[in-house]
């Protein structure tokens, strides 16, 4: 380390930020998950396990289970779709797009710079019964209002895929860009077909990009509640809806806190798994 340079002030600021704005609020949520609810919705400082016991009640457990399953399932399918489209796209951009490479990469991030509510609203317009997609389908002979997808799980999935694809495509692009094309030539010379080259050379070498992309898609997707709210019509509860409801509508904060502890644990497990199988620390993935 650098002699005489200890950066005390910088580390002071950094620790102040980390402790007061990152750790303390999270810790506080854990603490109030063990407290009781006051008569008017506040937090009363008496220790209790009631909130966790309440989660364990069959009715509540069923709701939590269903919404968690829905959230994890949606996040999983979204991630898969993003990989399925993002990987070929990244490969195309790096190896085949030639002089259009920069322009195409640029185009990829443009939609990502508009507000995500607006992007999601656009899909509401497109998918509505009188929307463009239905008009197009009618023109090619599918009859009027052939597609009733707005406020269905399909609409939610389209919205999720649309919003998260750029994250996956970008982190895969960065990874594929670092790939040495000579390795692919070597594999081809030694008789590996395109599929084998993809799975034996490209996928292992792009592991960190794949893991980074998956973290960036899967984890926020798991907590997502706005897209299901807008495109799904709020008909089915996701874990995010459940939390928002407890904190902003029902105002049972200790119970909501207990539910968010459950989500935090789940997120922690996912991060640990991605780190374990993504070969590389998350710090390197994100930088």
């Amino acid at each position: 380390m650098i002699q005489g340079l200890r950066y005390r002030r910088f580390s002071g600021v950094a620790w102040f930020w980390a402790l007061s704005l990152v750790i303390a609020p999270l810790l506080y949520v854990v603490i109030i998950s063990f407290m009781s609810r006051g008569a008017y919705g506040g937090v009363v400082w008496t220790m209790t396990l009631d909130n966790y016991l309440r989660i364990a009640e069959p009715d509540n457990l069923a709701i939590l289970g269903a919404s968690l399953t829905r959230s994890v399932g949606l996040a999983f399918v979204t991630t898969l779709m993003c990989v399925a489209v993002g990987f070929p796209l990244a490969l195309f951009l790096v190896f085949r797009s030639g002089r259009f490479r920069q322009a195409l990469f640029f185009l990829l991030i443009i939609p990502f710079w508009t507000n995500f509510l607006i992007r999601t609203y656009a899909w509401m317009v497109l998918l509505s019964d009188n929307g463009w997609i239905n008009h197009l389908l009618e023109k090619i002979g599918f009859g009027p209002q052939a597609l009733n997808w707005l406020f269905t799980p399909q609409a939610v999935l389209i919205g999720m895929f649309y919003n998260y694809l750029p994250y996956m495509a970008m982190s895969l692009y960065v990874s594929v860009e670092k790939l040495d094309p000579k390795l692919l030539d070597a594999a081809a010379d030694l008789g590996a077909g395109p599929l084998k080259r993809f799975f034996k050379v490209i996928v292992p070498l792009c592991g960190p990009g794949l893991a980074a992309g998956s973290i960036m898609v899967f984890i926020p997707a798991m907590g997502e509640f706005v897209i299901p709210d807008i495109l799904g019509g709020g008909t089915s509860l996701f874990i995010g809806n459940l939390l928002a409801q407890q904190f902003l509508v029902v105002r049972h904060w200790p119970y909501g806190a207990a539910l968010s502890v459950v989500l935090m644990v789940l997120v922690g497990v996912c991060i640990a798994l991605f780190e374990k199988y993504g070969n590389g620390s998350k710090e390197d993935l994100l930088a």
Partner: protein
Amino acid sequence: MKRLLEGLGVFLIYGFLFLPMVVLVTLSFNKAPRGITWEGFTLDWYSKLLNDQGILDALNNSLEIAFWTTVLSSLIGVAVGITKVRVPGWRGLGISKLASLPILLPEIVQGLSLLCFFVLFAIPLGKFTVVISHASFGSAYVATLVRARLKAMDPLLEEAAADLGAHERAVFIKITLPQLWPAVISGALMVFTLSFDDFIVSFFTAGVGATTLPLKIYSMLKFGVTPEVNALSALILVVSLLLVTVAFWHQRTKVAEGA
């Protein structure tokens, strides 16, 4: 043939990405107040938009919040980045671990925990709490860029300056900061858009008086959409397009200059 299929696939993906944008821009010029059939060109929705005090106030709030968030996050983010790379022992390592939390945790968890925290200290919800909340995650994003830049910099330069008698402050201002600028600028740009776009964290921490543009849009979506939203979307699209183009061009000329 294979080339053709490839091209078609890529064309479809980009079509999928841009279809919603095309729809919104087209509809923003459409006379029909409801429905999507073309009834002629109009600029009415734009003039309505510019006279809608609610939207203008929300825009104003968003810009103000994004500005202060950017200032605060850039300052904290530089400190966090330097601590990650240059501070030895647990002080540096601990920050390296903790600073990725705001990027990794779902926004809803951050939003609700910050809400609880503000209420604990009886801090009234408003623009101030939104700025603090946005800076909580914004600093982490600036820090990752600063860290990457620092890792690519030669620490010997700072060491040499210190050996030659420069104090810590002088080393930072004359050696470290000039090399860090590109990372700070891109970090600031990134945080500005993150803050300007943020819905979830603001949803929890804004309270009544600090309706930001995304919060306003959300309530418009929930309680009756008017074509004004289309006009607003088109305007936001054009402005972000300009910003991205400038940022991209800036980066390219920098690369061309070999910096």
